[in-house]
């Protein structure tokens, strides 16, 4: 791969433009992250110190106790988990069926459907907020889990269908033959023969959907602003007042919200990268 890259010798192998530039990028990306974690471990007094201190001294967990024992950030996290998990499961269930059908079955008019899905997946969410809000108010859905699960499912389905369809297309058609010769129903064939082959695609769709639900804010703040149903994003955004911003509590909650998703993304980073580039690279 490095055929066109000049071989470097001696100290130039360590100190060179590429390494220095990479270091610069790493510092630029991680400095704010360090500041977030460091602030979450500082005492409330130290957080407001001028000039700011470079590292927490002493390290304290006061903020975490405040956030989770005193102000119900645990509840917000739980709400986020419930909504994101339910939406992801629904997206996978519906998306696998639709992606399989649109990838493999000789359906007339599926091209317009696929194009339509693409259009919907780029549609700005602000355009549907007011009608959805009024309808949900009418049927008493404001401040409930389903108020987010249903829209999250619908808005993440188009991308998931596209990703999954691309995987299903790549599976050799002979696989279905096997199922058919065994006399299995199409659903059975999909479940036990096709799905195991499409596992990477399913991971990708799942990680993307979960991350999108976890980070969504506009719908969450519009439909579920009551304290008991706030997601972690809404809880963090609406905490404090115009005059007092309790950063310590906010950052403790933030670290707790960033950590699980960062781990998820790092563990599945192959899936994430292949999903990010699904559209970018010609097959």
């Amino acid at each position, binding site marked *: 791969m490095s055929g066109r890259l000049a071989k470097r010798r001696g100290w130039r192998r360590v100190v060179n433009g590429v390494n220095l530039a990479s270091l610069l990028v790493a510092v630029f990306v991680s400095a704010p992250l360090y500041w977030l974690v460091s602030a979450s471990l500082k005492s409330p007094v130290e957080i407001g110190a001028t000039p700011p201190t470079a590292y927490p001294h002493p390290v304290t967990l006061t903020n975490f106790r405040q956030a989770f024992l005193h102000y119900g950030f645990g509840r917000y996290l739980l709400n986020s988990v419930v909504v994101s998990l339910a939406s992801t499961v629904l997206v996978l269930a519906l998306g696998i069926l639709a992606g399989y059908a649109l990838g493999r079955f000789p359906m007339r008019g599926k091209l317009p459907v696929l194009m339509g899905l693409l259009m919907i997946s780029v549609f700005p969410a602000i355009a549907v907020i007011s009608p959805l809000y009024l309808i949900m108010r009418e049927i008493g859905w404001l401040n409930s889990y389903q108020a987010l699960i249903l829209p999250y499912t619908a808005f993440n389905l188009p991308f998931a269908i596209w990703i999954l369809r691309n995987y299903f297309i790549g599976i050799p058609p002979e696989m279905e033959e096997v199922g058919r010769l065994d006399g299995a129903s199409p659903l059975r064939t999909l479940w036990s023969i096709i799905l195991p082959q499409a596992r*990477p695609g399913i991971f990708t769709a799942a990680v993307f959907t979960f991350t999108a639900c976890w980070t969504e804010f506009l719908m969450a703040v519009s439909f579920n602003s009551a304290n008991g149903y706030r997601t972690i994003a809404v809880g963090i955004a609406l905490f404090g007042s115009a005059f007092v*911003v309790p950063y310590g509590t906010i950052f403790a909650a933030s670290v707790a919200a960033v950590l699980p998703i960062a781990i998820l993304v790092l563990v599945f980073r192959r899936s994430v990268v292949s999903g990010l580039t699904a559209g970018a690279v010609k097959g």
Partner: protein
Amino acid sequence: MTTTSGPAGTTVLAPRPAQPPTSGQPAGRPDVMTRRLAKLGWLFSAPALVVIGIVTIFPIVFSVVMSFSDVQVSGNGFSLGKLTTANYSAVLQSGRWQHDLIFTVVYTAVTVVAELVLGTAIALVLERLGAARGWMMALLLIPWSMITVISAQLWRYIYDGTYGVADALLRPVLGFAPNFLGQPTLSVVSMMVADTWKTTPFVAIIVLAGLVMLPQEIYEAAEVDGAGGWATFWRITFPLLRPTLALAVLFRVLQAFGLFDLPFVLTSGGPGYATESLALLGYQVMFTNLDFGTGAAVATSTAALVLVGCMVFLKVFRAQVAEDRG
């Protein structure tokens, strides 16, 4: 780790022609078989399409209707009232909407260009990096996966006038402390910096994946011809990378134009309306003024602008690709 293993690498923009589902179906009655499979296909797709239809297409249509109606909201319901264009004339004539439109367009243009240049530069550097590349990719994924609201709170703390770290770092250098979020022009720049931090990694990852896929032989040929680094980039890398860059631009423009989370927390659209985006305006009109008709007009016109912008972009892009090839 950047290779797109397997079929996820098929393009989204230009779908492959549909493949026949089973190659070896019984020769006698392909029609019956095809028709049965088609029916089954629609049956399989129906649940997803119905959910998407109810939650996206129906509200989009409803939103357009609302934007042309005299919407009245009361304690126990709402009525659409008579047909009117009053919402749109109110929106189009308001100086606030005009300001927000200009702000959103400028913000989108500047951040997307900045992120594209930076992201490409980062990708070019990382491509040459050895073993540490996996770690760098992992690091880049963290801002991407972060809740925007959290990065907004973090940057608000960094920019704070009394105990912000940006203040402490820049005061000795500049001799004075910039009022990062209090001065209109500077607050726009501050927000762009925060946005760039969060989103450049996304662009860098996409571009890097595109770079890795480029054929190596061309570069060897260029080296033999004695082309320098700069010439190689503009003559070879850039043209080959254009589809990748176009997709990154498309994604980012769509996202940036719907800007909401960041100003909601970082500046509340202020000072004044300096950092108020169209989406934030639509939200304020709906949920602060409880004026749903006008809010729908703001939202619908924003969505229409996005769609028109995307179509123009795709058309220009296709034309350019065709020109390159023919």
